[in-house]
Every structure is written in structure tokens, then in C-alpha cells.
């Protein structure tokens, strides 16, 4: 059964690209296009994803708040979180890791580097389960 990944990204083209890349690797993708939609998923009754890929700058609820919500939600606490941060916002990286994210990838990104981090996080999550 394919592992599921939640992508929270408000940029339609980038969300498509991420979905396209990850589906090629046989992951099952759910996209939330803003923070509110993501919050509904996190606080809903559905099963947690195997990994969450969050943009930092999101409408309504930002990526840092989503990390806090994920870490506070029973069942979601162990979900590995990979943050997408802008290169010019170095402070975001520290803030994201402090908030509880597992790793980050800087935009502009190399697709292969992103895929490698996704695989590593999923493998280490499976190893610690």
C-alpha cells in the first residue's frame, strides 16, 4: 500500500509539481492549498499521513502554526514534517526546527534533493515505529 503524504502549498504550480514528483515515486498525495484546509485535515477524523510537507508562507494559518497543531494532535505527533522555506528567510529555518519540524528544504529546490529527504524521513520514521 502506498505511503501517504500531505502537501500544504498555496502555489498551484508548485503544488502540482510536488504532487507529480511524489506520485511518480508511488506515494499517495493529498494537497491542502491553504492553512485552513490543512488545519481541517489535521483536526479531522481521517488517518494521519506518513509525512507532511509544509510551505511556511500560507494564507490564514502559517506553516509554523501547522507544525504546532500537528505536534499537539494525538495520532499526528509522530508524523515527520518537512518544511519548504524561502532562501532569503534564514530565520524561518531555525523557527521551523524549533517548532518541531524534522527537516527543511530551501526554495528554489532540487527535486532530487527533496525526494531524498522525503525517503530519509519516511525510512527513519518507519525505523523508529
Amino acid at each position, binding site marked *: 500500500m502506498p505511503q501517504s503524504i500531505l502537501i500544504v502549498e498555496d502555489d498551484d*504550480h508548485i503544488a502540482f509539481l510536488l504532487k*507529480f514528483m511524489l506520485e511518480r515515486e508511488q506515494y499517495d498525495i493529498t494537497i491542502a492549498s491553504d492553512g485552513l484546509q490543512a488545519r481541517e485535515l489535521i483536526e479531522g477524523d481521517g488517518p494521519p499521513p506518513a509525512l507532511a510537507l509544509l510551505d511556511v508562507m500560507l494564507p490564514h494559518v502559517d506553516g509554523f502554526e501547522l507544525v504546532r497543531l500537528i505536534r499537539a494532535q494525538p495520532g499526528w505527533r509522530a508524523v515527520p514534517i518537512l518544511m519548504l522555506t524561502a532562501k532569503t528567510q534564514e530565520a524561518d529555518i531555525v523557527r521551523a526546527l524549533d517548532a518541531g519540524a524534522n527537516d527543511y528544504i530551501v526554495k528554489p*529546490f532540487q527535486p532530487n534533493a527533496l525526494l531524498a529527504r522525503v525517503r530519509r524521513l519516511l525510512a527513519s520514521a518507519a525505523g523508529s515505529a
Partner: protein
Amino acid sequence: MAIFSTDPILQVAFWTGAGALLMTCLIGLQTIQLRTALQARQRRERAFVAVWRPALAAYVLDRDAPLPAALDPRDRIYFLKLWNHLQESLRGDASDALNACAHALGCDAAARRMLARGNRAERLLAALTLGHLRDAQAWDALALLAASGDSVVSVSALSALIRIDAARAAQDYTTPLLEREDWPLARVTGMLLEHQQDFAPRLVQGLADGTYAMRARALRIVEALHFPVPDDIMARLFAPPPPGNLLIAALRLTPTPALLAQARKLAAHGDWRVRVQVAKVLGLAGDRADTLQLRTLLADREWWVRYRAAHALAGMPSLAPGEFAALRDKLADRYARDMVVHVLAEKGQA
């Protein structure tokens, strides 16, 4: 009863009303036509994106992936918008793949034509495209645009020039970078982020040789990019003492022993904003001997100086744990004591 009155006033009123009605109808038709054209363009763009976005995504990941047979010239703008959007988010092999795709479709030549003959929006899109393509043939045309008075167009052209040849751009454009206040600092630092080795020596030289305004701007760029400033340049920056704004900008640089030495001399400066920065530098780079000056600043007449001095003392690695809290009982000045209590409370140690 006659349909048309012979009364001239009524005739004027009639024809005015008829004219207004006709104009309203024409404007209505024009609005409908514009709306229809916009919807048609949006439909065409959606259809274009539905075909090309997956094709580009596949090509980015695997250059053997097939692309659509041809790019309709009417879709070129949509292609360049999508292509630039992806370029802004991708780098490395993925960015090279996008460049290969654009070259194969003749977008480099098309962008050069747009740069020469397009409207403002097209020239902006062309500059962005040619920068990503690192198109050396476009250098002269982009250089002309970089000299234009239009801030957005000129800074976009400069961004493209830096992408094409950063060393040449550093040689030709460091002075304009420091002179043109209309080029947003955030945009400028973002452009220089990946080309620090080319720009750092020239910007640091600008700190020594530029006018006060240029030095102030250079300081803000150097601060944002964390360029190291050699000690001799640092000494020239502070002597003779520059205006307060320049001093403040200089004291905001990453602290070094040379900066610390300058900061120690400015602890009694007349401008309280300078004293705030002095307290910050002493706290970040000072040693135990600097606690004396910081204790003096803790009793400063300005709240922000006292606040920054208290934070500097609280964070000094050379002070033993509990020493800052113990200061509370040793200080004679009531305002200094209050500030220590305030900062202790902020840190949850009150």
C-alpha cells in the same frame, strides 16, 4: 400628435438622450466584448497549462520525457509565465532542464525580440527569462534597460545581468547599486545572495570610498549579507566620526574585534540610538571589562539604552550565572534596578 416636436429645446433633449443611449449601448457592447475576450484568454491559458504543465514537470525530472510537438506563438506568453514560475522555484539540474526546453522552443530569440519591441510587461517577462537562460547575447539590451529610470524594469534588468555574468555586473553596477535608492534593498540583497564573492570586495571598497549616502547603503547590504569587513576599512569608516545614521549602520555589522574597539569609544555618544547599538556590540563581543561600561549604560537617561544594556549584561558569557540577578541589589540608580528586574522578568527569572 407628432412624434418629433418642432420645439428646438425638446429636439436637443431628444438627441442628447438618444446619443447617451447609443453611448451606453456601445460601452455595454465594449464591456461584453472585453469580458468575452478575457474569458477566451483565460480558457486558452487553462488549456495551455493543462497540456504544458505536466509536460514540463515530466521534462524537469527526465529529459527524455516527450514535450508537445510545438509551441503555438499565441501561447508563448503563457509558456514564459509558467516557465519563469517554475524557474523561480527550482535549481540545479531541474533549472538546466527548463533552460534546455526553452532553447529547444526558440524562447531565447523570442525573449530578445520582446525585450527590444515589447510593452513594459513583456520587457519585464523577457528580462526575467533571459536572466534565467543566462543569455549573454542580451547583455547590451539589458544594460540599456538597467540604466532606465523605471525602477521595476531597471532592477529586473540588473537581476538578469547578474545571473548572466556576475563578475562583469559587479564591475559595472556596484556604484549604481549604491547610488540608486529606488532599487529596493530587499530585492538587491536577494540578487546578491548567490554572488557574494563577486560583489563583496567592491561593496566593501564602497564603504571606504563612497559618499555618506553610498556608505550607508553599502553598510545595510553588507549587514544583510554578513560580508566580513577588513579592519583597515572598519577604521576608515569610523574616522573621522561619521554622522549618527552611518554610525548606527556600522555598529549593526557582525561584531569583530575592530568593531568592538570602535564601539567602546562611542559609549558616551550624544545620539541615544548609537548608545543602543554600542550596548548591543558590547554584549555580543565584549569581555568582563566591558561590564563597567554596560553598567553605566544601564543608568542611561534613555529607556531603550537601559533595556539593551540590561539584555547585553544578561547574555554576556563572561558573567557567571546569577551575577546579573545579583546586580539588582548593587545598583544605586533606581531606573537601572528597575530595568534589571524587567529583563529578569522577561527571562522568567524574576
